[in-house]
């Protein structure tokens, strides 16, 4: 408690401010590498907010999966692209007249759903009660996934597997004219295939002169 305000509340607003700022920076920075790095910051701050909600499993998985793997691949691609930064800066004013109405319509729709139905707001979502000291978020997630939501969970896993196989099948290209090494062949190689021993008499250069 600092001056009557809960530390959690202070942290919540701090993290929220960082998150919103980073999210804005993602779409407003000129350099795509900066955008990707700001997205990393956004994910990380979101994980911190989830920790405040005492869902440590989901928070850490967010960091492991999105920050540790997905965003690294994103950065890979963005860094490899040879982007000319100048054309990116053009056309902001030209497209603004269509961009602003679209943004306004989307914002209006979101707000209409939120307020008209009364689904959001503090009366719908009260402050969650503190969990007991022995509460394990990991255990809770595991128990729900493997009992109540077993079928959707397995179906989602299968869909992801199919998508992965499809992605690999679509992108793999076997080129015939490339020389590659096959380790199994390399290991199986016999001496006779590489070395030929020739029997011959030893030869000494004919001595001229000397003693």
């Amino acid at each position: 408690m600092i001056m009557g305000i809960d530390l959690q509340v202070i942290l919540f607003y701090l993290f929220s401010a960082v998150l919103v700022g980073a999210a804005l920076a993602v779409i407003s920075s000129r350099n795509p590498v900066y955008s990707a790095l700001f997205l990393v910051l956004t994910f990380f701050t979101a994980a911190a907010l989830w920790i405040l909600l005492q869902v440590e499993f989901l928070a850490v998985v967010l960091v492991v999966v999105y920050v540790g793997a997905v965003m690294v691949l994103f950065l890979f691609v963005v860094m490899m692209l040879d982007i000319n930064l100048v054309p990116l800066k053009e056309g902001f004013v030209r497209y603004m007249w269509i961009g602003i109405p679209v943004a306004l319509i989307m914002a209006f729709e979101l707000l209409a759903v939120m307020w008209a139905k009364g689904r959001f707001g503090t009366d719908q979502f009260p402050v969650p009660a503190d969990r007991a000291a022995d509460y394990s978020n990991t255990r809770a997630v595991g128990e729900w996934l493997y009992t109540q939501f077993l079928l959707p969970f397995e179906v989602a896993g299968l869909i992801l597997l199919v998508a992965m196989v499809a992605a690999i099948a679509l992108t793999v290209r076997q080129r015939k004219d490339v020389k590659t090494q096959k380790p199994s062949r390399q290991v199986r190689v016999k001496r006779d295939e590489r070395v030929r021993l020739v029997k011959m008499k030893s030869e000494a250069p004919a001595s001229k002169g000397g003693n």
Partner: protein
Amino acid sequence: MFEAFLELAWIVIKIMAITVPLILTVAYFTYAERKVIGFMQSRHGPNRVGIFGFKLWGLAQPFADVFKLLLKEIVLPQNANKFLFVLAPVITLAPAFAAWAVIPFSDTMVLANIDAGLLYLLAMTSLGVYGVIIAGWASNSKYAFLGGMRSAAQIISYEIPMGFALIGVLVMSGTLNLSEIVRAQQGNIFDWFWLPLLPLFLVYFISGVAETNRAPFDVAEGESEIVAGFHVEYSGAAFAVFFLAEYANMILISALTALLFLGGWLSPFAGIPGIGDTVLGAGGIHWYLAKTVFFMFTFLWLRATFPRYRYDQIMRLGWKVLIPITLVWVLVAAGLKLSGAVTLGA
């Protein structure tokens, strides 16, 4: 208010009690590396720098190195991205140190005994790759960029077998809490997880060596091809920070292998008649440090023994050999656990 301040100060003291010995260990790890490899190659290694005229087998060498690096100029390459260039070493170092928060050194000695400790470790170790990528990109140098790309691809690839090896440990122990994982291995050397999880134990350590970009997986530095990889443009203190992070990561991998597969602080003789009742049978931090030092030595041993892998061989080993092994053995571990062939806490 004052009590909160006192608690905070106490936590800071505990953090210092972990990081200061860690930094000193890193300093002497570099010395040990040069000495061990020297002896293995029938050389002396560093043996000149001593204190007050005494040579002392070169024991002051690490300090000479540190002061040299700190006093050198940090050269900022032209057209480098200055902000990210300076940020990259810090991003590499921070997770390497932060991961130590959850390591239990003995039954009671742990800074943060959190339930999702193992996940926290995974999260921290997966963050280290950012420093490498950013350093490679911000340097605005082809060598640095290639090194960064190689290193990042390698780290991501070897995180997968590493994660699966951890799943085997989780299946056996049934908890994510590191202290509980050690307690699940209660007993002597034959009760620890290395025996039922032998393939995973080997895969974990090999992946750990690859993850830290150490020989024989050190193509990210590859002096003969890309000069020094992602940190080719770094000098002085910034280079020293990369160095510090690399060695801290090596010590971390050694400590984790000892923790997850070799029973952490438990004594190898516990419960054995005759020896088990004496001092040797009692667990404690000394056992944990001894096991960690063994794996740290193994890092150096590997470097002195093996030639460098080729890059496609590294990828083949990771994806086509290690990952299938772990996939199969996770199932075997689950079978062992369900059938009751392995019981916890003998």
